[in-house]
């Protein structure tokens, strides 16, 4: 287990290395951070001065070394926009994003597990079709639109919760639901499919042939055996949240997280801050994938060592 874990961590670190290097190539080879941060009509002297200031005149490899060293020591560069270290800004913003993702995962699981189990239990019957309908509707609707509908109904019309921002614990409900509905739609279908396939496994057929009802077989035999799949699916949804939903939903609800920070960085043409946001979110994705693998191994000893 320990050797496996070490190998897995090294692999994750390797992915982080490749990903951050890619980000560096994107920001330093394909683009010019100095030019981007200045207005289009800025003079060439001004740009030169900015390049000098940012240390962009040095050889690329040296800059990369500094970038990589900075990453290891937690230094993500200096934001032009806010005139302070990007890592400091990210540290301030990260808790809000984690809270939002946490809330969204809770909503997702609370909805998806019962719905997925219901659909599998009543396979090809009305509840199954109804759950499929629910899933398709929420997979198809853009989450930011769901966010606005929730605002219109619950914040504007009913005035139950704050419209936006992070004020009080109720403010997390709407953004979490906006993210959670789409994820729940997908997760419910994945859980249903996993259970239905597992119910075809000989041991599940055996259990039913001994007179255990379909529902008992699902709750007492099958569900534990698909728990590792369930962890994987939930993890996939979490990575989706980190890479897409947070940015959009944080913009909709003015939720002060890393996603909104990245959005603002683009508006402010602050390439360093955006780079910091991208690196952190990508790091969270890699970490989530690692966590999924570890959790799967702990839950289900049958999961193959890789």
């Amino acid at each position, binding site marked *: 287990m320990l050797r496996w874990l070490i190998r897995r961590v090294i692999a994750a670190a390797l992915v982080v290395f490749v990903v951050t290097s890619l980000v560096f190539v994107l920001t330093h080879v394909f683009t010019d951070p100095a030019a981007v941060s200045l207005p289009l009509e800025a003079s060439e002297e001004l740009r030169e001065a900015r390049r000098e200031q940012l240390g962009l005149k040095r050889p690329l490899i040296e800059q990369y070394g500094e970038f990589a060293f900075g990453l290891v020591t937690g230094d993500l560069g200096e934001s032009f926009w806010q005139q302070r270290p990007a890592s400091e800004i990210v540290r301030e913003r990260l808790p809000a994003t984690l809270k939002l993702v946490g809330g969204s995962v809770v909503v997702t699981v609370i909805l998806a597990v019962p719905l997925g189990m219901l659909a599998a239990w009543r396979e090809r019957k009305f509840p199954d079709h109804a759950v499929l309908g629910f899933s398709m509707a929420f997979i198809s609707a853009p989450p930011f639109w769901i966010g606005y509908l929730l605002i219109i109904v619950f914040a504007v019309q009913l005035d139950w919760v704050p419209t936006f921002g992070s004020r009080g614990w109720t403010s997390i409900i709407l953004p979490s639901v906006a993210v959670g509905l789409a994820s729940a739609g997908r997760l419910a279908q994945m859980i249903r499919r996993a259970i239905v396939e597992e119910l075809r496994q000989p*041991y599940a057929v055996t259990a039913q*042939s*001994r007179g255990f009802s379909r529902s*008992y077989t699902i709750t007492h035999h099958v569900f534990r055996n698909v728990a590792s799949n369930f962890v994987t699916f939930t993890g996939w949804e979490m990575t989706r949240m980190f890479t897409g939903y947070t940015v959009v939903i944080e913009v909709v609800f003015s939720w002060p997280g890393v996603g909104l920070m990245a959005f603002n960085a683009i508006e402010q043409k602050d390439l360093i801050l955006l780079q910091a946001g991208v690196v952190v979110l990508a790091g969270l994705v890699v970490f989530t994938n690692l966590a999924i693998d570890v959790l799967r191994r702990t839950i289900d000893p049958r999961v193959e060592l890789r």
Partner: protein
Amino acid sequence: MTAAAPAPTPAPETVAASAGPADDASNRLLEIADLTVGFPTRDGTVHGVDRLTLNVGSHERLGVVGESGSGKSVMGLAILGMVLPPGRFMGGSVRWKGQNMLDPAVAERVRGREVAMIFQDPMVSLNPLKTVGAQLRELLRRRAGLRGRAVRARCIELLDMVGIANPAERLRAYAFELSGGMRQRVMIATALACNPELLIADEPTTGLDVTIQDQVLTLLHDLSTELGVSVLMITHDLGVVAQFCDRVQVMYAGRIVERAPIADVFAEPQHPYSLGLLRSVPRVDRDDEELEGIPGEPLDRARLPSGCAFEPRCPESGDRCGQAPPDLAKITDRRWVACFNRSAPPS
């Protein structure tokens, strides 16, 4: 402890001699009539079993033989009122002691208690994440209604009965810690947990070593005699049938093509398919004969010919065979065959 037989037990010879619907009606446990199970596919509905009729009496060991894909397994589950989606029952009846097994309420009561099934591949038929003991206890508590100390005592008794040494220790084992033969013995123990009157054994020896196969068959045979349990043996292997059963039904493409006492089939198979099956089995008593396979390919179940399903592979097929499927007809008092070329003697 053994399940009481509902009717006066006839001598085994009588059971062996009787074949098909002609046997004594009061003695029947299981009656299947015209059962059809359909699976929707892209090429239309495939009938897993097709107008199947079959009876099992008490204290009987009946064999059902057919190659893979002939619908044997679908039949086994259907007896328990089970069909895997997207399949569904399309007609006919399954009656257990006169009760309708296609009624879910009846089926759920009978399953595991009065009729229990043993599956092929014991490797995967036990729950991989539960110990042997947990699986037995669950059955005894929830299906047999045992409580307290009786549960453990019965667990040990069951494992002992199926010939597992150190039963108390084995209760803590997971399926993957046991050998194939042991797993099948545990399977049999779970099947016997509630004292069933009928055991359906679906290819119980497939995937086991030859010596283990023999042990498992012997165990099943002894248990069925000892406990008075009827057995419906579903297999592709005529050797298993010869060793185990009193009576045999040969199945092809979801239909019964021949039914007869076991000795008659071996001595003089009537249906061309039975003949082919027999010729493809190595026989110890006649080693001069050459082994033959059945010509042609196994069936594509989605595209049955309009006539006799065996017609494309049949060495004796004639003009009538391609037109309509033949019915199962009585040709002697103990033997029924579905073939146009085997007609009943004038009565």
